[in-house]
């Protein structure tokens, strides 16, 4: 009689897992705590996907982070020096690589003083790291889209990109955006695609990046124009020359750090090429603005009219 031995394994995941779409990369987020998992699921509901994961973030809550923890943060440089070492994180979070190129583990310390430290904004950094790490393998280190510090507004079928560093006014723009003015995609970061070789233009895509203005939307729209923010006592807009546009927009591109990166210098050419491609094909303006929403959207409307006229002529 022929017999067979069947080996079974318990494939039940030990973590609650969310699969999130970050551009063309699928990032799984495993979370041991049921309560945190539910919060994350609500927070990122627009980005949930059924796709297989390209990379996994594994989140574990600990009562105490021991100094000899394998995930010990090694510096505050914000740069991953080599594969296999841990890297810094915010406050009571430490992180490290557990499985080269596919799993990034990070631990959060729950303390009685701050039991609810999880505002989750720190996850932005891990999603950025996960995205660019996955792009190393998936696209040979040439990401089809890059993350930019910007607030995106969907208006007349196009995405307006309001770019600027922290405190430049990205969230203010989002708050000044009424229903009739447009739809906020994200007030913190956007994915902006590189021009495709088939002649397709540049697209702006929502990403699961947390700002101050919920919710983040998973939409894709063609890039209309870029407005570099400057708070002022008046609301005006002026077109920037190529070099100024290049230099100022470059500063808003998120450094594409990835796991296994040896040197920060390796990512500069990528940022420079992306910036050149985007600012070389898209009108870039400096937008000085006040807290007067009416004048802001009036200026934007006039800009839209002038852009449309140029397209017709």
């Amino acid at each position: 009689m022929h017999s067979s031995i069947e080996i079974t394994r318990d494939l039940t995941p030990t973590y609650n897992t969310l699969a999130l779409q970050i551009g063309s990369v699928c990032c799984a987020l495993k979370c041991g705590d049921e309560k945190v998992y539910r919060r994350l699921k609500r927070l990122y509901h627009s980005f949930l996907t059924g796709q297989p994961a390209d990379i996994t973030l594994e989140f574990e809550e600990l009562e105490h982070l021991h100094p000899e923890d394998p995930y010990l943060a090694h510096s505050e440089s914000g740069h991953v020096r080599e594969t296999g070492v841990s890297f810094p994180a915010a406050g009571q979070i430490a992180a490290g690589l557990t499985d080269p190129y596919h799993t990034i583990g990070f631990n959060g310390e729950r303390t009685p003083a701050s039991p609810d430290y999880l505002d989750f904004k720190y996850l932005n950094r891990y999603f950025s790291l996960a995205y660019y790490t996955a792009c190393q393998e998936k696209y040979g280190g040439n990401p089809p889209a890059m993350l930019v510090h910007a607030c995106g507004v969907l208006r007349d079928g196009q995405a307006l990109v309001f770019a600027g560093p922290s405190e430049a006014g990205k969230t203010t723009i989002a708050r000044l955006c009424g229903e009739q003015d447009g739809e906020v995609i994200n007030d913190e970061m956007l994915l902006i695609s590189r021009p495709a070789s088939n002649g397709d233009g540049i697209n702006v895509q929502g990403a699961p990046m947390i700002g101050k203005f919920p919710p983040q939307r998973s939409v894709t729209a063609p890039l209309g124009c870029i407005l570099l923010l400057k708070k002022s006592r008046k609301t005006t807009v002026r077109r920037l020359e190529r070099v100024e546009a290049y230099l100022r927009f470059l500063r808003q591109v998120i450094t594409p750090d990835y796991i296994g990166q040896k040197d920060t210098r390796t990512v500069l050419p990528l940022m420079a090429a992306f910036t050149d491609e985007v600012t070389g094909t898209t009108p870039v303006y400096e937008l000085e603005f006040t807290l007067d929403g009416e004048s802001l959207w009036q200026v934007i409307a006039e800009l839209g009219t002038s852009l449309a006229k140029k397209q017709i002529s």
Partner: protein
Amino acid sequence: MSANNAVRAGDATWRRIGDEIVVIKGDGKSAHVLNKTAALVWEKCDGKRGVDEIATDLCEGFNVSPEEARSDVREIIAKLTQIGIINQIEEIHG
């Protein structure tokens, strides 16, 4: 006989934007915009060409005398070396 040739810093990232060239230093902390003349000199600084050869190219591209071109090339190379985006290498001539 030996002479110093100028070579672009290997860790600098640069792009031509119209007539100008933007150079980002390797540490990513500073960027420098080179005008049309400096951009031409920068592009020729491959470590193989000396001042005279670069000056000849400058004469062809701009309406300047050879003396003026040599002076400009020396000045530009000195400035770019000072800011750390050009290195001097010694080339031995037989």
